[in-house]
């Protein structure tokens, strides 16, 4: 049940919005396509759904090329951004639509739809119209509508972006439970890295129509392979390093073959000099209190800004005050690809 994208490319006019996308989405995974606007994530989802036809490459599902299969015959269903519920149909009719198309008999439709609507917790609103529902309820209808079609893969296009923050948390949990119960493949498009990190088995990070990295959330966070990923996922400090491992703060214990970059997370940086670490004298330029932690920004004597996250209220340093920062060698990750900062 794997979905394989083989050298997929898509261009509008002379610009390639997707270039050489090679990707394998394993059956049953919660897979996210993550990227900013213009990264090509939505175009890629549309290509998988069949809304857009790629200009090159193959799309294999279960070993079969489905690139020329029209969208109505693909074993995938999509939850659209903004849900695209049919405004003139009730919740029941919206959910029943796919079954009616298939020609399922009315009695079976009634049972399946009632059951599915109950499952998403909307039994009481089954005869309501979409305009009479809240955003979260509309979301559930959109999900129920695709689930009754028993797709092999569910595609979700920014499904949480229209909801307010508190509801988004609830829906995240709902989606995760749904995925666990159904064991289906979820392909989830989002621009929100936090959403992707908390939900996914694997994430594909797209940038300007190219894949930057495909990995588990853990690997993406701790071992980004490009500077783009390092900066896109969470906050990071990037420091240039020369061939041989020399940085402005001293030598790192990594094998560096050519000029590259090292990254170190804000929470890994300590205040006060330490052994087996790169030490740097710095001035505090900004501090932001977040309740459970405090983010402090320092400017080193070499002129580089470093972000440091400390638990609780942070260290008692005034803005403009001096401190010695320590960057443990073990926390430094080498990024050999991508632009140097």
């Amino acid at each position, binding site marked *: 049940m794997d979905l394989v994208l083989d050298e997929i490319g898509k261009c509008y006019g002379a610009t390639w919005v997707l270039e050489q996308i090679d990707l394998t989405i394993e059956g049953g995974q919660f897979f996210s396509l993550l990227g900013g606007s213009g990264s090509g994530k939505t175009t890629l989802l549309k290509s998988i*759904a*069949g*809304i857009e036809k790629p200009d090159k490459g193959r799309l294999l599902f279960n070993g079969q090329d489905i690139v020329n299969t*029209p*969208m*109505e*015959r693909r074993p*995938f*269903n*999509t939850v*659209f*951004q*903004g849900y*695209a*519920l*049919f*405004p*003139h149909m009730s919740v029941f009719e919206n959910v029943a*639509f*796919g079954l009616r*198309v*298939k020609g399922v008999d009315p009695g079976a439709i009634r049972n399946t739809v009632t059951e599915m609507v109950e499952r998403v917790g909307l039994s009481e609103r089954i005869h309501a119209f979409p305009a009479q529902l809240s955003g979260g309820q509309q979301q559930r209808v959109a999900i129920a*509508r*695709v689930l009754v*079609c028993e797709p092999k893969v569910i595609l979700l296009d920014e499904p949480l972006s229209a909801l307010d923050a508190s509801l988004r948390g609830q829906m995240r949990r709902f989606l995760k439970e749904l995925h666990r119960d159904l064991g289906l493949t979820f392909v989830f498009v989002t621009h929100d890295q936090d959403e992707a990190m908390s939900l996914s088995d694997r994430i594909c990070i797209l940038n300007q129509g190219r894949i930057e990295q495909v990995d588990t959330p853990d690997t993406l966070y701790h071992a980004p392979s490009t500077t783009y990923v390092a900066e896109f996922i969470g906050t990071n400090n990037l420091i240039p390093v020369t061939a041989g491992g020399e940085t402005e703060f001293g030598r790192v214990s990594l094998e560096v073959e050519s000029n590259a970059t090292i990254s170190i997370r804000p929470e890994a940086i300590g205040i006060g000099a330490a052994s087996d670490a790169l030490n740097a004298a710095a001035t505090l330029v900004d501090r932001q209190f977040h309740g459970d932690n405090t983010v402090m920004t320092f400017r080193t004597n070499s002129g580089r800004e470093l972000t440091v996250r400390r638990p609780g209220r942070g260290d008692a340093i005034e803005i403009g005050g001096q401190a010695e920062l320590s960057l443990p060698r073990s926390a430094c990750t080498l990024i050999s690809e991508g632009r140097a900062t």
Partner: protein
Amino acid sequence: MKLTRPALNAIAVLTIFVLYAPILMVVLTSFFTVRRGEIDWASFSFDWYTKLLANEGIGTAVLASLKVGGIAVALSLSLSLLFATYITLARPSRLEAGAISGLIFLPFLLPPIITGMSLLVALKDVEIERGINAVILGHVVFVLAIGFRTLQARLAALDPALLWAARDLGAGPWRSFLQVILPQLKLPLATSAIMTLAISFDETMITLFLVGDGATLPIRLYGMMRYGFTPEISALVTLVLVFTGLLTALMAWLTRGRAGGFTG
């Protein structure tokens, strides 16, 4: 500014009144006799209406107008649907879309005399006789812009994902269009049908060139008016006004709560 505003308001109220004064005059003269420039209030009667009903020519003209209007509505809306869906759903190039809407709007924007004469000349060249069919054709070409503009505006405002969702759930292009897109067009179809009918029912200038020996109601009126201002015409005009008023009210009811419904 202190005095200008009340003055302007007075002008506005007066203008709205003056818009109706001539029509009021017509309605009054259909019920009352006017003698030596004064209305005889005691002379109220429906006489002119009964005379009107006896006039066979009028009945024929009304039927002709309704026939032309009905067919023109059906044809122009079907064509509008064909054109508007093409422009919005088939995604033609900007240039093509511009050319198509330009051609649709052309007969509507040109002075009616030119549209009328063009059709007259063209129909003569392809040897179609003047008459009711020619009038229908002329009306369809003229009113096409109304349905097209209204439907296109609605279609352009639709979420494209509606169509995708239908296809995604397994419906083919026809089913998606009929069950998902078409129901969204009910209101614009109804309002443009009313507008189209009203315009066709009143159209005189283009019709005059194409009608030949027959007559639609406005042509009949035009002919009668050459003999002056008579109570019989006033009665007919009053009836037409009632019909138009009903259409306007229906339109207003359909578009209630939506400002600017009249301009699509």
